[in-house]
């Protein structure tokens, strides 16, 4: 009977159409994924993936299969549920259980049938992937790793099948014990939301192991196991089923088995006594007063039908409110959103204040998938409501006009979606209040949830509703909606960016406290109007085609439609059509006529053309800017900016110059551009914004000339690809890059060799060699200037303050606008910006340096920390490296359209999303004071970048970014103590190891860094911190000071990492010289492990520790292939207390392989280990320590056993 149940289930499923549809969907998705990552669609869209992890690498295949299987899980949830439920659902249970059926074989047979079916169904992904791989092989063989058959099966053994077993057991149990299907859907929702929360929690390095253990799907576990794998490993290795992955799989399989056991134990084969929630009121039967059926009724009017429709909508909505599926979403949302917001931490595991925009953004983001599911689901439920209930004939035969029922259903769907907004609002509110934040912006709640989000959801409702009406097969319409969502994602693959062809498409509208929704709103409104016209057309067509009665054939529906069409309908449709076409034309005019329509792919093509057509200019001598005098008129209310100015140029070469290439942004309106008196360029390349001037009298060596420009920027809100965000209503942040640049820009060339190949360009190195003498002629910050003099006149609206580098010389008001005159008293890099906003200013003083923070009035949370950061960094850097070159330091807040802080001379623009809303709790040992840290980093840049600037070559950013990072680390170490640093450095280690995995070209040693953030920031932090820990902070600082004194304000030849390393080498004691090699000159990683340890009280109150360690050291090439090294290096051995703080640390020589270390600790340690504070780069940092076992104290005269 057991096998009979299994085979019955399988046979039944094989005969169902849905089975084959599911299999086809899975295989198709596999095919698409493989082709997309193999670059098959590359000719259509701009590339985004890393080239170094190949399309069919075991790592990629594991990801494809497990991800697609998650969607497959949604399909099989119903299968497991039905396996348990079908006998109740179909009413056959009385037939089954009156046979001689044993519970256990019955249930397990049903389960096994569903499981076998699901497990086999999931395999449908494999043929899709294989066919995809063949296609990739035909298109571009280099995207493929050698084929490994096991790589296609391993994900099932390790990932998919155990997950299906667990999830299936959950669904099966829910259905079997409740005898209902609804709890199964609840189960799906809870599992997926739970995973999302776990995922958010993984952001914090401290939670990673726990998350990896607990993730029922095993995604986080796989991620954890392969997190730091290099491309070489990802392309070659199967994830080992050991450690956390094994534990996770065993744990959840056991949970699954336990659930099945519970089901067998608790399942009942007898009648379930249904008792309604409350007994009927036992009222005395009212004597009905009216017995005769009233026969006089007023004829219904249009108004009364509207009322009927509203009543119907309300009735249907109330019915939804009574369904457990709905409540599962609501409860899950209310429970998980606050948790999700709580665990998602902004930076270094430290939270921000739950300001309204942020909480709403996270909450709506988390809830969006569920809005899609609910909308799709209830569109079907509502359209089919009467028919599913068997009331179709009765309702269709009533005299209510067709639009009454049709409208009521659509309205009910809108009410459902609207009610979800209330859920999000409640969840967001609970979060804010729960975290002690009471500055709740009710207006923003209303505008974000109702005006912005709900009105967008309406479009989706209409589409889902239309699909149901048109297709008239509930599940087919569901499938069509799922395919629609997939197609939306796929369009991007094919390089289709046009929003007007993607239903509901519109640009994003990020909210900023400074700038509100700003100019984004008008683009959103126009796109919405366009799509609302389309939605009205859909509603109108749906009205004609909606079924009434039983005529499901298209012929009958068309006859019916013709009869339903009325004058009012035709008028409405005509207006909507005119609106749709008209607004579409209006938007297209803005996107394609007034502004060029440029896709990401077009940009890529443009860069390729730039290189092909203009590379010859790289060899031509170009003048260099020596003096900058600019006038910037900012008109925030019009979003307009006028930029006038004169650059004085000098021919610093030894050859006369007769041809000059000048570059401008292609959206700048050029009112005037004159070079050395020539005001018409000989050639102009409009799409690339290039101007080529031919000088009638060549510019002699050493001679000067002027470049005079008058530009206007009027960004169009409706431009394709989004309007520029640096000229806005409040918070303009406009930089030098928008003004003329001279010469060919090598940084602009396509970098990815795969992309280059596509355009017939030879592969290229990212940057010239570290020691290339020609490269030392230019600094890496501005290619067309060395140090320049700078002055700027800036004007803005009367209520705003505009700031540029330099000192304010004069401020005045002219025709209702504010003017500011800034002048720098010494040469600076050609690297400047201007900001303008309605600022409040906080002022302070450090020695004779004036400190100012220009901030949004409500963003006062972290000002003190920033101010302290400025002071402490100024003090540390002045004391250890040399004097500060300015008399003033300013921080200026700008809107969150970008998330960074950037150091300009004496001026630091700082994103509102980065630190201004930081919530650092002093009493929380885990919180990192990142506003303080970032401020210190930017201040340190005034030395490292603005005093010392590296050449545009490998290692250039090590002299600035790494040094700024080091300075900030030291500032933090002195204020917050070394213990805080451990957590901070763990984040840096994590980000470095993740960064090297995501590397697209090649990883290089720190001293050859090619402007890669994960190297010059994260690895830089780790390397410099380790160095100062081993050789001492004073030695490092002495080297840096000597280096800085030597190269301060040095123009060409610019310095670089080699020179800096020379000073470090001189200061490093001989026994630590190998460190410089390991940290800066090579990619070196340790794999250190504490194998075992014992402690024993030595009788004098101290504890003797015996520690077995296993140490390994590897050198990696630029692809991540490792070779093991021999060594005998210095490392910390030490002991930690319960809080993880070191109670003992000592440097010891540790050789390769296993060795034994002993030391004595004053108190009993909680953990002991090798490099316990993770100062060295180690891919498994958590196994460096172990909990020691305690041995009996040595007692004298221990009796020996015979």
């Amino acid at each position, binding site marked *: 009977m057991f096998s009979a149940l299994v085979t019955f289930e399988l046979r039944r499923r094989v005969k169902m159409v849905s089975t084959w549809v599911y299999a086809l969907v899975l295989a198709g998705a596999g095919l698409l994924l493989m082709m997309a990552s193999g670059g098959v669609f590359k000719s259509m869209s701009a590339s985004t993936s890393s080239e170094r992890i190949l399309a069919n690498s075991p790592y990629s295949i594991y990801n494809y299969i497990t991800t697609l299987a998650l969607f497959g899980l949604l399909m099989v949830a119903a299968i497991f549920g039905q396996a348990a439920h079908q006998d109740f659902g179909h009413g056959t249970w009385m037939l089954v259980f009156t046979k001689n059926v044993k519970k256990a074989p019955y249930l397990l047979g049903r389960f096994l049938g569903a499981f076998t079916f699901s497990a086999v169904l999931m395999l449908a992904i494999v043929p899709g992937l294989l066919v995809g791989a063949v296609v990739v092989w035909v298109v571009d063989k280099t995207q493929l790793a050698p084929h490994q058959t096991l790589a296609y099966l391993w994900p099932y053994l390790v990932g998919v099948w155990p997950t299906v077993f667990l999830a299936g057991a959950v669904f099966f149990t829910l259905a079997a014990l409740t005898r209902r299907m609804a709890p199964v859907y609840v189960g799906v929702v809870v599992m997926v939301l739970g995973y999302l929360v776990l995922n958010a929690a993984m952001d914090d390095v401290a939670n990673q192991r726990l998350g990896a253990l607990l993730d029922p799907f095993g995604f986080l576990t796989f991620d954890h196991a392969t997190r730091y794998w290099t491309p070489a490993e990802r392309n070659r290795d199967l994830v080992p089923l050991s450690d956390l992955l094994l534990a996770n799989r065993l744990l959840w399989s056991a949970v699954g088995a336990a659930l099945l056991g519970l089901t067998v134990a608790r399942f009942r084969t007898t009648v379930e006594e249904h008792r*309604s929630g409350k007994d*009927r*009121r036992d009222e005395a*039967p*009212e004597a*009905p*007063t*009216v*017995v*005769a*059926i*009233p*026969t*006089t*009724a*007023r*004829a*219904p*009017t249009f108004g*009364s*039908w509207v*009322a*009927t429709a509203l*009543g*119907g909508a309300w*009735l249907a909505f109330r*019915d939804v409110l*009574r369904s457990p599926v709905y409540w599962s979403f609501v409860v899950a949302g209310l429970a998980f959103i606050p948790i999700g917001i709580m665990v998602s931490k902004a930076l270094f595991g430290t939270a921000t204040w739950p300001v309204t925009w942020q909480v709403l953004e996270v909450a709506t983001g988390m809830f969006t998938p569920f809005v899609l599911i609910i909308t799709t689901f209830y569109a079907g439920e509502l359209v089919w*409501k009467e028919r*599913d*209930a*068997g*009331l179709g*004939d*009765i*309702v*269709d*035969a*009533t*005299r*209510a*006009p067709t639009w*009454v*029922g049709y409208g009521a259903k659509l309205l009910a769907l809108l009410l459902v979606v609207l009610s979800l907004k209330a859920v999000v609002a409640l969840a967001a509110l609970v979060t804010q209040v729960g975290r002690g934040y009471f500055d709740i912006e009710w207006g923003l709640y209303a505008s974000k949830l109702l005006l912005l989000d709900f009105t967008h959801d309406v479009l989706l409702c209409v589409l889902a509703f239309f699909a149901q009406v048109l297709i008239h097969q509930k599940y087919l319409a569901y499938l069509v909606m799922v395919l629609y969502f997939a197609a939306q994602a796929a369009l991007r693959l094919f390089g289709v960016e046009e929003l007007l062809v993607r239903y509901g498409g519109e640009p994003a509208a990020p909210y900023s406290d400074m700038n509100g929704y700003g100019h984004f709103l008008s683009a959103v409104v126009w796109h919405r109007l366009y799509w609302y016209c389309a939605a009205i057309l859909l509603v109108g067509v749906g009205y004609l085609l909606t079924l*009434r*009665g*039983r*005529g499901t*054939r298209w012929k*009958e529906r068309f*006859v019916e439609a013709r*009869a339903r069409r009325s004058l009012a309908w035709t008028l409405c449709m005509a207006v909507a059509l005119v609106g749709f076409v008209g607004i579409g034309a209006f938007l297209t005019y803005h996107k394609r006529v007034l502004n060029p329509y440029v896709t990401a792919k077009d940009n890529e093509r443009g860069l390729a053309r730039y290189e092909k057509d203009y590379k010859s200019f790289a060899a031509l001598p170009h003048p260099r800017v020596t003096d900058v005098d600019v006038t910037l008129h900012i008109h925030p209310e019009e979003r307009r900016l006028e930029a006038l100015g004169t650059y004085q140029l000098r021919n610093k070469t030894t050859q006369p110059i007769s041809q000059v290439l000048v570059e401008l942004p292609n959206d700048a309106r050029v009112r005037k551009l004159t070079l050395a008196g020539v005001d018409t360029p000989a050639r102009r390349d409009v799409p690339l914004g290039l101007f080529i001037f031919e000088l009638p009298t060549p510019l002699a060596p050493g001679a000067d000339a002027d470049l005079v420009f008058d530009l206007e920027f009027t960004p169009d809100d409706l431009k394709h690809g989004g309007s520029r965000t640096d000229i806005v209503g409040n918070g303009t942040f406009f930089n030098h890059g928008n003004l003329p640049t001279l010469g060919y820009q090598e940084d602009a060339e396509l970098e990815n060799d795969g992309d280059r190949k596509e355009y017939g360009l030879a592969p290229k190195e990212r940057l010239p060699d570290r020691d290339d003498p020609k490269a030392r002629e230019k600094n890496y910050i501005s290619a067309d200037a060395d140090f320049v003099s700078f002055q700027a006149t800036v004007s803005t609206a009367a209520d705003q303050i505009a700031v540029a580098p330099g000192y304010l010389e004069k401020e005045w008001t002219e025709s209702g606008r504010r003017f500011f005159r800034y002048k720098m008293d010494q040469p600076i890099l050609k690297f400047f910006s201007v900001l303008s906003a309605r600022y409040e200013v906080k002022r302070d003083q450090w020695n004779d340096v004036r400190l100012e923070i220009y901030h949004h009035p409500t963003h006062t949370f972290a000002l003190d920390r920033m101010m302290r950061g400025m002071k402490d960094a100024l003090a540390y850097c002045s004391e250890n490296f040399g004097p500060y070159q300015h008399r003033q330091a300013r921080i200026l807040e700008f809107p969150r359209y970008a998330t960074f802080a950037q150091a300009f001379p004496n001026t630091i623009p700082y994103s509102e999303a980065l630190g201004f809303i930081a919530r650092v709790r002093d009493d929380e040992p885990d919180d990192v004071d990142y506003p303080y840290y970032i401020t210190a980093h930017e201040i340190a840049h005034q030395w490292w970048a603005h005093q010392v600037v590296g050449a545009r070559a490998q290692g250039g950013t090590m002299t600035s970014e790494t040094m700024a990072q080091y300075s900030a680390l030291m500032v933090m170490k002195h204020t917050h103590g070394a213990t805080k640093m451990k957590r901070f450095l763990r984040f840096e280690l994590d980000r470095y190891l993740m960064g090297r995995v995501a590397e697209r070209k090649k990883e290089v040693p720190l001293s050859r860094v090619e402007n890669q953030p994960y190297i010059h920031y994260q690895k830089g932090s780790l390397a410099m911190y380790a160095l100062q820990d081993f050789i001492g902070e004073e030695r490092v600082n002495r080297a840096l000071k000597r280096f800085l004194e030597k190269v301060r304000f040095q123009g060409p030849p610019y310095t670089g990492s080699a020179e800096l390393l020379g000073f470090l080498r001189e200061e490093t004691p001989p026994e630590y010289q190998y460190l410089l090699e390991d940290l800066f000159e090579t990619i070196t990683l340790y794999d250190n492990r504490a194998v075992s340890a014992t402690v024993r009280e030595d009788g004098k109150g101290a504890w003797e520790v015996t520690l077995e360690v296993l140490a390994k050291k590897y050198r990696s090439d630029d692809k991540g292939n490792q070779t093991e090294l021999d060594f005998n290096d210095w490392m910390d051995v030490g002991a930690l207390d319960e809080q993880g703080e070191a109670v003992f640390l000592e440097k010891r020589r540790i050789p390769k392989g296993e060795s034994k270390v002993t030391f004595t600790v004053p108190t009993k340690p909680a953990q002991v280990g090798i490099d316990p504070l993770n100062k060295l780069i180690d891919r498994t940092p958590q196994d460096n320590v172990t909990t020691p076992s305690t041995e009996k104290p040595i007692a004298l005269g221990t009796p020996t056993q015979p």
Partner: protein
Amino acid sequence: MVPDGLGCVSDMELRLEGVSKTYPNGTRALNDVSLTIPRGMFGLLGPNGAGKSTLMRSIATLQEVDAGAMTFDGIDVRRDKARLRDVLGFLPQDFGVYPKVTAWDMLDHLAQLKGLSVRRTRHDAVKALLTKTNLWEHRDRRLGGFSGGMKQRFGIAQALLGDPKLLIVDEPTAGLDPAERFRFHNLLAEISTDVVVLLSTHIVSDVADLCQNMAVLAQGRVVASGHPLRLVEELQGRVWKRFVGAQDELDALGKQLEVIAVRRVAGQRRVHVYAESAPAGFEPANADLEDVYFHALARASRQA
């Protein structure tokens, strides 16, 4: 009973002429059906699958027919569905309910859909119908908890909403216990005095008890129609009966004579046959409507 053809009331009647319908799978559900259905109760008898439900749904505007004309009181049913729905009450053969909605709410909702826009009159109507169908004390119960009989009564209540002029009830008494059936018959009789009621059933006694007019439908055709008593009268003197023993005997009879029906009477089988004169061994039987029905069916199947 109201004698038909009095001529004092207007000719509010449902007229079907040559109505035909073939399903996409080839089934001929209706084959040239022509009927005139006057005010009062009209019984439509026929076995399962005869096309009764198709015919009723077609009249109730839920289904298109391929050919023929249907008019009711000057309304062209096929063209002007909206106007017909204004005067229509319909109880389908099987229907469901929203299990979580109370009887009152559901009926009130349907009353709105039937155009009872004024709250007071609508509530009065709902109240009256719930009372009439004996559901008043269950009005606050969810429909999911209703028994089959209660559900059927609810269906009747909704069909009577909005004062219909044409009432189509498809197998209304299936699943009702005798008392409920009796009450339902009374209810129908009460309202049928000035509306057209089309009642389909396969229970002959329903028609015999209630209807002034009837038709027998078999394989999509009208095989008999008229006043029930008159139809019985027409058959009088041509129906003969006798008891039979073994199955062989019955089979042999079937070959020689037109067997109308075989009934069990007191444990024995009695066969009715149709013949112009008494066959050997038969004695005259008192024809009833059941004989009319089976005779019509037998003839229809012989023609087919």
